[in-house]
């Protein structure tokens, strides 16, 4: 008997419902996470896109900061998109103080320009089939430097835009804004292997 895979979506601000819908579509159960208690029993956690400055402040205020770090130390798979990638990064260019500082990457915020320059592009993502992924970049960050243990999953014009480090997954783009479910399926598989432990 398989147990339902529960994937949390950090419910502070941003594209929360979009991620929850994708989680349902790949056959997992979405759980909205606002308090530390909500992390109990999860097999994975998504940090959605939004404003990283705002979300970073509020997870500290609501006592989610330490519990998310502890959950990650236990191996809970975490998937950050856009602002979520910035929250995960150990270093942020411009000497800004990092947030959760879990992933061994240096990120540059808004590195593709301002909103008027935001765009969609078809990119290839490692570990998916050969069909290009419709990637939506909105005031998007990119990974400037990735540490030794970080696997680069996708690049765009020599900029790293998708990475994985063990149980951590991050994209500079927004898979939750497209109908393509492959990134969420990929993350569900990570959540399943955590469940199997």
């Amino acid at each position, binding site marked *: 008997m398989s147990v339902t895979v529960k994937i949390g979506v950090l419910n502070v601000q941003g*594209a929360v*419902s979009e991620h929850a819908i994708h989680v349902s579509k790949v056959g997992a159960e979405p759980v909205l996470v606002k308090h530390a208690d909500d992390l109990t029993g999860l097999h994975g956690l998504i940090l959605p896109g939004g404003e990283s400055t705002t979300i970073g402040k509020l997870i500290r205020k609501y006592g989610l900061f330490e519990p998310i770090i502890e959950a990650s130390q236990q191996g809970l798979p975490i998937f950050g998109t856009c602002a979520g990638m910035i929250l995960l990064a150990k270093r942020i260019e411009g000497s800004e103080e990092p947030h959760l500082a879990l992933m061994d990457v240096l990120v540059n915020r808004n590195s593709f320009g301002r909103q*008027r320059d*935001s765009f969609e592009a078809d990119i290839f993502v490692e570990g998916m089939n050969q069909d290009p992924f419709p990637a939506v*970049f909105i005031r998007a960050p990119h990974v400037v430097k990735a540490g030794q243990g970080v696997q680069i999953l996708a690049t765009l014009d020599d900029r790293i835009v998708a990475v994985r480090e063990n149980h951590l997954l991050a994209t500079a783009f927004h898979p939750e804004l497209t109908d393509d479910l492959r990134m969420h399926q990929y993350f569900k598989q990570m959540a399943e292997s955590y469940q199997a432990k």
Partner: protein
Amino acid sequence: MGTTVGSERVKRGMAQMQKNGVIMDVINAEQAKIAEAAGAVAVMALERVPSDIRAAGGVARMADPSIIEQVMKAVSIPVMAKCRIGHVVEARILESLGVDYIDESEVLTPADDKFHVNKRDFTVPFVCGARDLGEALRRIAEGASMIRTKGEPGTGNIVEAVKHIRMVQGQIRKVVSMSEDELVAEAKNIGAPFELLLEVHNTGKLPVVNFAAGGVATPADAALMMELGSDGVFVGSGIFKSENPEKFGRAVVEATMNYKDYDLLAKLSKDLGTPMKGIELSTLQANERMADRGW
């Protein structure tokens, strides 16, 4: 492989990233920093807040670009700015400055009494005000990527914003339950493009994010608008016309994100000092009502 700048998905997506957040009016770099520190998801750079525009009278126009640039330099969160209804050139100027969102706003004096800006022509997204579903869908047809209630700006009085969000939500519920032949008649009645109305019928919601604006003066007002189905809140005059803007701004941010947590709302509402004084709507002359600008 194709790259598309400023697609509909990218422009609407930007507004989706603002959901559950608060967008604050600011008139200089210092206020913008306070707003960012208070947890705003974006700031609206203005020369005057709506209540001062009201007090000053005369023609209200796009802000001086140097104010907008100062604000853009001061913060890393998105910066919005207002152009007059139908003023294509003000909109182009704001786009060239690199603002992240343009508000084609009834708070400023309209430049065109018949037409709004064709917003599809721009790679920068637009937000527009609406009092009902028909108006919202007309703006979306012109390319608006985000809608907000008009409310009655600069009054500190929430009654009009409540009227507008209730109107939109009630009309959506009605449209969802209609048959397709009724939808054609409804499209005519409310002046909405049929295809967009059909989309609302099928999905049960607007195709873009819908924020509250125009009269939010307290954390409880912000929570009320969320309770009524808004995706987020614009606060204009409320924050920097209050006694302690930083504390007030933080309280509005937290109230918006936790609008059902009444213990927290009670705590947030304590000792905030005097909020903006506010205007009773019946004392406004018809020509003083900003919500009636645009169609």
